């Protein structure tokens, strides 16, 4: 996760002709929210990542001062069974986006050092496979929320990004 300065420099030169700096600089995060569950239960965090760069980037996870442990996970339903698997990295295509949304990719947040309540803002630092980081504010939402709660301000196309609304 922490490439040496040399390989980092080489990577930058090779991939981006020396113009592009880091993955994080090309990524814009939006609709960042956390579904808060009671007590010390693990919570899911969701965000939409847009990459305006000419090269794909990959999210490898996140860190937080509030949660001791954060893991990138993927939920799947196959053969009528729901399961969760750990994911090493999630690619954000060049000039494309990756959506972390319920029933798909999410960050699993564990061991909160202090209770997080709906309405709180929690900073998670997204980390990319090139070692760059993107501090992002996540809004804490109630357990029974369906989304980031900002639909009215959303561009219409963002709605289709939620897997569970896509069938309607």
């Amino acid at each position: 996760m922490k490439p040496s300065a040399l390989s980092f420099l080489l990577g930058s030169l090779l991939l981006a002709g020396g113009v592009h700096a880091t993955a994080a600089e090309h990524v814009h995060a939006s609709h960042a929210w956390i579904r808060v569950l009671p007590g010390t239960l693990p919570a899911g965090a969701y965000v939409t990542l847009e990459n305006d760069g000419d090269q794909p980037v990959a999210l490898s996870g996140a860190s937080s001062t509030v949660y001791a442990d954060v893991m990138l996970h993927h939920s799947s339903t196959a053969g009528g069974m729901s399961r969760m698997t750990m994911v090493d990295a999630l690619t954000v295509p060049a000039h494309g986006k990756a959506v972390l949304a319920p029933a798909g990719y999410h960050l699993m947040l564990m061991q909160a050092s202090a209770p997080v309540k709906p309405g709180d803002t929690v900073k998670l630092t997204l980390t990319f496979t090139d070692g760059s980081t993107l501090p992002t504010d996540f809004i804490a939402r109630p357990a029974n929320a369906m989304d980031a709660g900002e639909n009215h301000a959303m561009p219409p196309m963002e709605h289709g990004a939620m897997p569970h609304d896509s069938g309607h």
Partner: protein
Amino acid sequence: MKPRHRLRATLLLLLLVTGLLLGGCQHDAPLPFRLTNISGHMPDLDFHLTDDNGKAVTGADYRGKVVLLYFGYTHCPDVCPLTLAQLHVVMQRLGPLADGARILFVSVDPARDTPAVMHAYVKAFDPRAVGLVGDARKVEALSKRYRSAFTREPSSADGAYEVSHSSAIYVFDRDGKARLLATPSASRDDLVHDLHLLLATGASQ
């Protein structure tokens, strides 16, 4: 029209109306469901578990309510809360009718889910949700009854683990008869539509 014909026509009309009225009351009248109809293909609602207030309950305690049965666990941060949040939205859309329905959330993680943990969890979603716990044997009996399954995955170094589980939502009518099968990705419109049909059939006589 001759009087005799008029009488016959009136009788026919009466028969037709009576038939319609009776049809509306019968349980086996085919209801125009949108979700998968499992009427007659799954056993009646029956279990012996403990509710989230610590009280021993059986399937019979929920006769008179339309029941939405779902298996999951509280340490599930993504699909279980999403499903319960979806069901909460459905209940909200049913308005006061929702009082005739109950969401039964059965834990497939007896080691970690106590009635107290379940109570805080289900009430965070919907006031009509009930958390049910029981020892592994009892939960397995209920799960097998509906051809559902769950598997505890290997623990990580810190002792945390996930439980893979069937994602289906089973819907029972007020008489405890299995009627519908829904997936978490079922459209909320379809759920609302079909629950309206089941709630409109009234309590069992």
